[in-house]
């Protein structure tokens, strides 16, 4: 089977890679050393911390099993991390289903899109309300 003719599989593979990069970033950079290269632009501009501040710390701490500290760094960190973790599993599982069950590909893709949108809205709900509240 050629990947070139299956955009769904290519998209899944690339997104899996992106999520893995996020995980690697969280593992490589240490919350104790505080050496994260990405800083909050929002805080730099306004001088006020935003709703997503401490998310990198939170991810790193979750991956190290320090859940209480992760919660203290960012309240929504766990929810967003679970979204990424679920997406990683979903990308792999849906790709396997796509290859195995050729008759139900369309239904599978629709289910994937609806499920991902719902998960995204649940995980980033607070970020959306923050955006709506201030804009």
């Amino acid at each position, binding site marked *: 089977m050629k990947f070139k003719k299956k955009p769904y599989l290519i998209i899944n593979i690339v997104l899996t890679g992106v999520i893995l990069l996020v995980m690697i970033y969280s593992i490589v950079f240490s919350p104790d050393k505080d050496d994260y290269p990405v800083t909050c632009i*929002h805080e730099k501009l306004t001088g006020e911390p*935003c709703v997503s501040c401490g998310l990198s710390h939170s991810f790193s701490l979750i991956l190290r099993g320090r859940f209480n500290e992760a919660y203290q760094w960012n309240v929504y960190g766990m929810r967003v991390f679970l979204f990424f973790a679920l997406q990683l599993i979903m990308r792999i599982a849906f790709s396997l289903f796509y290859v195995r069950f050729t008759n139900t590909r369309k239904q599978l893709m629709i289910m994937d899109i609806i499920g991902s949108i719902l998960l995204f809205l649940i995980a980033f709900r607070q*970020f959306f309300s923050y955006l709506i509240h201030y804009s």
Partner: protein
Amino acid sequence: MEEEVKNNTGQNLGIAALITAIITFVLAVIPCVGLMAIIPGIIAIVLASVGLSHAAKTDSPRGVLVAGLIIGIVASLISFSQIFVAGKIAEKADKWPGRIEEIVTDIQDKVLEDLEDASVSIKIESGDEKIEINTSANKKDLIEKLEELEEEDTVVADTLDQE
């Protein structure tokens, strides 16, 4: 053969646009990096537009391209709205220094009021030696002391007059 290559170009552009748009969308919602997301957002729109023009020429499927374009536009708009959010918060933050100044002045006044009746005691011990300094900032005490000093006979006996 040439047509197949053209079709592939359109499809590849569509996939690239859709992936960029999805990543942009996730980034745009996060306030910390939301403003930066406008760059991949524009890239996604450009890729989708180029792909659509290719698809129009070759009459190839446009589903992925249209999806990439729509998600790219929405993500860019969300990213752009982060500027307004930052602006509003900065506006609020500007009001803070004035309020902080007021609070500091209030605290300062209260501390001064409390200190009016305060008494300070300093004890220094070094081995057997002991020094104790007691002072009071009590307004009433200070007034009484001043009055006592004024009442005291300030004329110092001159030895020359006595002779």
